[in-house]
């Protein structure tokens, strides 16, 4: 081992790369949100629909940590239950977006030719059209609204975006010699796609996935604000903000807390995505 040290760059000798404390704080916050959404039923929370007539538009107190809204409902409870909608839509839509956009983008970049031209032209037509308008239009006609329909519509709307990012990332990798090398070693196309290309675009895909979730959560907020998301009284961060608009002057807490929840959630997602991208950005220069 020692005799060959001159030939080998010891990985430990490289400056250790760290993700940083802020990264882990963000991960922790997201984990807290997700766990809260999953276990909302078993947490010691008031029913989010229960109206306490003795505490209407109350500020934060020991009994209602984040206060109550104009109908006397507990805000903390509604934020935790509301995160279910936001997180489900965020993850569900991205599963659809990546489920369709990732294989298509990889295939187009790998095969090139007519398939690539057709798919790319098709996707770019959709990209040129403002997604929010399309989503609003479809959701207005596809009634009655349900969480499932919202997820499907937003998921499909995100396909062109995912496709474009994945296609570009794959193009850069597919042009490199190791792909040709794998090919002349007898690897089939499927093998090249799964074993050679996918691991190499994974860092970009993961960071884009996180930022995509953040975008979708925002979009759900926008839809809810326009009254196009889940029907009241089911809480979601977006419709909580929307409902609090009318009583903002009397009870500013009501708009502050759900906005803060949404804001922190998005901030963490973006930060993690960004941090991961730089972390995995291995360049030969660093050797």
């Amino acid at each position: 081992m020692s005799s060959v040290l001159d030939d080998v760059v010891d990985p430990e000798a490289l400056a250790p790369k760290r993700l940083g404390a802020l990264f882990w704080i963000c991960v922790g916050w997201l984990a807290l949100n997700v766990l809260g959404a999953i276990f909302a039923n078993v947490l010691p929370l008031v029913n989010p629909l229960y109206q306490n007539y003795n505490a209407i538009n109350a500020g934060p107190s020991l009994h209602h940590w984040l206060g109550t809204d104009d109908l006397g409902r507990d805000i903390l409870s509604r934020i935790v239950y509301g995160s279910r909608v936001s997180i489900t839509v965020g993850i569900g839509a991205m599963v659809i977006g990546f489920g369709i956009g990732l294989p298509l983008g990889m295939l187009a970049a790998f095969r090139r030719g007519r398939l690539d031209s057709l798919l790319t032209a098709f996707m770019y037509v959709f990209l040129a059209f403002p997604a929010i308008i399309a989503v609003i239009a479809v959701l207005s006609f596809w009634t009655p609204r349900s969480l499932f329909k919202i997820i499907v519509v937003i998921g499909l709307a995100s396909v062109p975006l995912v496709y474009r990012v994945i296609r570009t990332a794959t193009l850069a990798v597919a042009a490199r010699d190791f792909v040709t090398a794998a090919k002349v070693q007898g690897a089939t196309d499927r093998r090249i796609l799964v074993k050679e290309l996918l691991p190499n675009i994974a860092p970009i895909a993961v960071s884009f996935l996180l930022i995509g979730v953040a975008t979708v959560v925002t979009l759900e907020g926008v839809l809810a604000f326009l009254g196009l998301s889940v029907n009241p009284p089911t809480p979601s961060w977006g419709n909580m903000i929307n409902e609090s608009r009318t009583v903002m002057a009397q009870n500013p807490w009501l708009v502050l807390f759900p906005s803060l929840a949404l804001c922190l959630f998005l901030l963490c997602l973006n930060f993690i995505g960004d941090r991961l991208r730089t972390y995995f950005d291995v360049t030969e220069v660093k050797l």
Partner: protein
Amino acid sequence: MSTQLLVVDDLHTTFRTAAGLVAAVGGVSFDLATNETVGIVGESGSGKTVLARTIMGLQPRSNVEVRGSVLLDGHQVVGASEREMRERWATDVSMVFQDPMTSLNPVMRIGRQIDETLRVRLGMDKRAARARAIELLAMVGMPSAEHRYRAYPTQLSGGMRQRVVIATALACSPKLLIADEPTTGLDVTIQAQILNLLDDLKEQLHMSVILITHDLGVVATRTSRIIVMYAGRIVEMGATRDVFFRHRMPYTRALLESSPKVSNPSHTRLRVIPGRPPNLSTLTSGCAFAPRCSSASERCHQERPSLEPAEEPGHVFACWHPLAATELHEAPR
């Protein structure tokens, strides 16, 4: 036929581009015997790499036209589908790429990259493939191969990576190995090591090698024959000795003169070939080298010379005004 592993006959590779047709390979014919090493030299853009890829059957199907014939071990490569070629790659013909930095998958352990081909092509099981991969790594001179089996490419130096690339290319004992500038990305001392390694392995495994380079020093001692290419055509071909000492084509001399020699006094200015390699989409009917050639005449600009035999057996050249045959040219080193 029986002794010739590779017969290339009037091979044309033409790209359809926005700027018109580009004849990257324009009528190349040569053959290669079993266990022979042939060097292909020429400037950048002379069609060496396209020729190599065409012989491999690696051209994209769209926007490229391949005509002529490439018989590899009796099988036609031109027009073969990728599925057909997949049966031949790795076992019949394999390739070492230019840059070891990009020809290894950065996120796969090097051992697995060798394993893959053994398992896919030879149907070995996991354990046998692993043992064979370690054997191959040891064969290409990888120190503590067993340990290194689990290394990632970034943990190895350039020379070590190129050894891994060679091990991968040789995994299925190909009959023909095409090494496309295998030492370009490496420093000079490592270059010699890698070339000697290729030479040893050739003898050990009884394979034929096509060594592509722009560096005549690389091919001087390791090839039996040299093919000089210019603008997609062969301009001179012959035994290594003849090409070095009895070349007839002015381009070959220009190439030889532009390599540095140890015998030169310090601070000797390196001779360069004036002008640039021609644009392949605007080739005229004349000799492609004529615009840069000092002995070019009117005829050179009008008519393209064909390959004519020289006195020595197997030595051919394409020139209207060949250098004198009796002249024993200066040794390159």
